[in-house]
């Protein structure tokens, strides 16, 4: 019975927590928000100095080995600082290529993605017109899509790589509520896409990666929202008392911790289940995504509420957490959809 971090995992956690805390500062994140939502210097240090962009990717192609547990540890730490990074692209596109790509595809893309030389994004394209490997239509809501060099696109029938510079590809960026991860529309006009060898494996890897990454970000963000609110509650005095001494305030913070602890179990259950190829993996990823997203949104909303007036100013960081939390709720399937998947898994077919 060892549902606890190994010493190595503890070390990775300490390293990445310190890294993001020191480097993904509010100032730098806000600078990135004014640009394309990526702190490129941070991304470069993460990929090259820290060398952790390859976690969960095969060592043969520049990856660091290890698995989704370690990836989740990183995403949790990045999420805790609402870091402006294209980490989700690693969780989705790179995982899909690693799982479903040919040796050539892996050799071409994985080293570039691990080194930070290229940025990837992924999305599903249900409803798009697909004829053989020729794709036509608008791919909506692609996270960090305007900054990506390569896209992995999936539907029920296949999985493809599309280069940003391929003929027929054009990208429209959008001003997005969460400016740390702007959405883009990728328009495809008869684009000749490169099919991934094992579409099923790619699809599963993409989904598992997306859901675990977002769940872990949400866990980190929720915990940090709690930590910062606790700190504020010990500083701020109203009616001559620390506001953290008011029982209603305390209890709300306690409720945050109750859900955060469950979110923590959810993230690492899901990551372990995927790494171990457990029968529970599908149940776990849907559970984690829905539960963690709700927890983060609740905690970030409370962060605003419990900071009072200052909490809804632009100057305070609470809105960064709040907007990230809101975006995670909808991204790659909302809570109702994930819970419906859970229901279908345990009860049989969808309603």
């Amino acid at each position: 019975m060892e549902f606890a971090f190994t010493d190595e995992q503890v070390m990775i956690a300490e390293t990445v927590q310190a890294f993001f805390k020191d480097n993904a500062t509010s100032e730098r994140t806000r600078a990135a928000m004014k640009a394309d939502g990526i702190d490129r210097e941070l991304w470069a240090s993460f990929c090259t100095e820290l060398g952790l962009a390859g976690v969960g990717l095969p060592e043969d192609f520049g990856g660091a080995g290890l698995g989704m547990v370690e990836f989740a540890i990183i995403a949790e730490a990045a999420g805790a600082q609402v870091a402006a990074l294209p980490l989700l692209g690693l969780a989705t596109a790179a995982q899909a290529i690693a799982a479903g790509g040919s040796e050539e595809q892996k050799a071409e893309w994985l080293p570039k993605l691990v080194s930070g030389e290229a940025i990837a994004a992924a999305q599903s394209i249900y409803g798009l017109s697909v004829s053989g490997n020729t794709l036509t239509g608008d791919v909506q809501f692609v996270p960090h899509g305007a900054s990506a060099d390569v896209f992995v696109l999936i539907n029920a029938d296949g999985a493809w790589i599309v280069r940003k510079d391929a003929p027929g590809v054009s990208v429209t960026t959008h001003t997005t509520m969460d400016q740390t991860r702007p959405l883009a529309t990728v328009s495809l006009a008869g684009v000749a896409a490169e099919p991934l060898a094992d579409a099923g494996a790619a699809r599963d890897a993409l989904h598992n990666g997306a859901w675990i990454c977002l769940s872990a970000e949400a866990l980190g963000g929720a915990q940090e929202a709690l930590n910062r609110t606790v700190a504020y509650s010990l500083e701020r005095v109203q009616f001559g008392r620390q506001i953290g001494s008011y029982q209603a305030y305390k209890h709300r913070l306690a409720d945050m911790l109750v859900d955060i602890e469950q979110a923590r179990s959810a993230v690492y259950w899901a990551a372990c289940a995927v790494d171990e190829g457990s029968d529970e993996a599908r149940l776990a990823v849907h559970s984690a995504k829905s539960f963690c997203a709700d927890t983060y949104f609740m905690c970030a909303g409370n962060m605003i509420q419990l900071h009072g007036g200052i909490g809804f100013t632009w100057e305070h960081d609470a809105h960064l957490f709040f907007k990230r939390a809101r975006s995670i709720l909808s991204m790659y399937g909302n809570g109702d959809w994930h819970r419906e998947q859970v229901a279908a898994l345990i009860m049989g077919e969808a309603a």
Partner: protein
Amino acid sequence: MKLGFSQAEEQFRAECAAWLQSQLNGDFADIKGLPGMNSMIERRKDWEQRLAENRWSVIGWPEEWGGRNATIAQQVIFAEEYARAGGPNRANHIGVELAGPTILAFGTEEQKAKFLPGIANGTQIWCQGYSEPNAGSDLANVRTKARLEGDEWVVNGQKVWTSLAHYSDWIFVVARSEEGSKGPKGLTFLMMDMHQPGVEVRPIEQINGDAEFNETFFEDARCPADSLIGTPGDGWRVAMGLLAFERGVSTLGQQMGFRNELDAIIAAAKTNGLDKDAVIRQRIAKAEIGLRLMRYGALRMLSHADSAQIDGAALTYKIQWATWRRDLGELAMDVLGQAGEIAEGDAYEWSALPNMFLFGRSDTIYGGTNQIQRNIIAERGLGLPREPRGDK
């Protein structure tokens, strides 16, 4: 007990509606349905003037000061019809709803003559200076200081959340005039000209990217000695009396805005097919029920408005609507999906529903957080022991 209004009241409604619609489909069509508090301020001042010329700007006031002595029912009706006709947010709502009634109740005849006409006709826009950085929920913890120097008050300090300050002409300020006093004692209620060197206004940007609130700094700002309401040291009583003027007559107009928001959500659901989603239907139904109960709660509250009795409906109304609207924002985003997270243009500017989602987070904070509201409900409404101050 009955749901509707009397025939005479309905006749008054028709009169309001006819006039408002003629104006807002005529000379003032350009500001019909204008959202927010910031835009087209000059035109909105013109509009205040037009309202005043026709005695529609302060209908609850006595006739001598430009009003109609309107009953609460009539005020409710006007607020509803104003909203229905698409009237823009009242540029001088603090003057009309707070400063004016305070001056009417506590001011001298000179003060009435000096201030009421400008409030009534919108030539003098007002804002309020209550909150301070260390006096958020704890309103009495005022640190802004006022001292009498010759025939002038000299004011130093900082106010925060002064909405409209950036285009206001006047501000009422609660300042500590007795050195060393604490809490609600030793405060004075002053009316100050905003157009002077000692007053500086800095906008506070909110999470929606807009800036409706401000910080207002006073550095040796001045006003004549007779600019106070009540007596020196008596400002807390005046300020609290002022809060009591928020009797909720504008409530039913505000609810029409909520109605529009909920209708927009329903329309969005019909467009993207979520109107067939059983879970969303439940949430829409809950929102609808909540809105209807808000209406009838307000009607109960206003039907009792002359009673001295503490009214549960009145005590609970703020937390009710604020919580409802916060939840409505979440429903809006859940219905819009990711499309709701994308701005229409390049700027960080939001269409109505996402803006409501973002700005709605402040509804449960300003004017008394939900936590403060629950204290008030428990203590005044249920007679439970007061929350102890830490500094007593």
